[in-house]
């Protein structure tokens, strides 16, 4: 089966944060017997997302192996050598042998088993969905609260609104506290997408979201993917403009745009 190995290697070596790293002893590899024996081989392991890579050493530039952590369970195991802190990655699939690994000590063993057990895409998706719904709840209860206090505060806040708005953005607070009802309806001042993007990267677009009347993303939308797509479209348009202006140059914005 073909695999885009160059890209996979690039991802493994990239500076995107690893979820766990460390030295582990491993059995299995070219020329090793089907049943693990001996002390195994010490390699540097890197867990990124649902992918476990091994390297010859910490400085290694080419992964030795890849294990895709989907459809597997991680269990404590017996190592061929005594007193090893071993565990195994076991797959449901027929004909797939478990990967036997051993850590340097009990703390490392526990940390690895935990990290690997939670590495699947499904686990991450579960947590994301949970937070998505929690955010929706928080927004709804906030909207209700605002609605009830709207009449009381609105007249007081009106003249200050534009300052509150920009202040909100500067401070990175999504809710300018002293004029929160205005935040919902005040039309957003013109924003440069570059700034918007930077804010998004650092704080999340909620601050822009709550104030924008024209936004296709209403305050009820708590879905990151919708925001993502909306910004994506805007970015595509901007890039066209940039590229027209900076003809021929490799768009440095490519890095900005990419996720």
């Amino acid at each position, binding site marked *: 089966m073909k*695999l*885009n190995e160059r890209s*996979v290697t690039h*991802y493994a070596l990239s500076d995107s944060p690893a979820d766990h790293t460390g030295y582990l002893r491993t059995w299995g590899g070219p020329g090793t017997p089907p049943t693990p024996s001996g002390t195994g081989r010490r390699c540097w392991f890197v867990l990124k*997302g649902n992918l476990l890579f091994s390297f010859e050493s910490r400085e290694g530039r080419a992964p*030795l192996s890849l294990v895709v952590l989907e459809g597997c369970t991680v269990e404590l195991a017996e190592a061929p050598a005594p007193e090893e802190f071993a565990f195994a990655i076991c797959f449901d699939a027929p004909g797939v042998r478990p990967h036997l690994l051993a850590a340097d000590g009990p703390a490392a063993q526990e940390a690895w088993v935990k990290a690997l057990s939670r590495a699947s895409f499904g686990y991450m998706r579960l947590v994301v969905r949970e937070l998505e719904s929690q955010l929706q709840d*928080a927004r709804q209860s906030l909207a209700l609260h605002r609605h009830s206090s709207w009449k009381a505060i609105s007249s007081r806040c009106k003249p200050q609104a534009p300052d509150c708005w920009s202040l909100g953005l500067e401070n990175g607070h999504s*809710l300018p506290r002293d004029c929160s009802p205005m935040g919902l309806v005040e039309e957003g001042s013109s924003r440069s997408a570059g700034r918007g993007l930077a804010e998004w990267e650092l704080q999340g677009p909620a601050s822009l979201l709550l104030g924008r009347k024209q936004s296709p993303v209403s305050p009820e939308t708590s879905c990151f993917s919708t925001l993502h797509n909306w910004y994506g479209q805007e970015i595509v348009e901007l890039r066209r403009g940039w590229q027209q202006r900076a003809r021929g140059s490799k768009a440095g914005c490519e890095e900005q745009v*990419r996720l």
Partner: protein
Amino acid sequence: MRYNEKELQALSRQPAELAAELGMRGPKKGSVVKRRLVKLVVNFLFYFRTDEAEPVGALLLERCRVAREEPSGFSISFIEDPERKYYFECCSEEQCQEWTEALRQASYEFMRRSLIFYRKEIQKMTGKDPLEQFGISEEARFQLSSLKA
């Protein structure tokens, strides 16, 4: 790089986010469009010959760029070599839209960013860390510092 093909084959049999027969053309110069059953499973895109049970190949979708290609297709390329593109042809604008949207959100890194975004927002709104109740607030994969500025 060693990997167990059987692990990937097993993964390709998992329920897919999206699956369809599309035209596909590899990145090499002079490659032709072939009909392939294309299947999106977690952060992998598998492609099969239409009459075969095992995939011809797989693409890991981390750090990829999905772009529209006229008339109704899209391409996937990777950050380290943006000119090297895998081309896909859809049968309609709707199908193309469906695929590009799904593929852009298919990476683990995209999910991580979503999670960090939601976590931050909830913290801002409620003053509480939503992950604490699950006892996972210290996990490396959920850290706010994970976001590249």
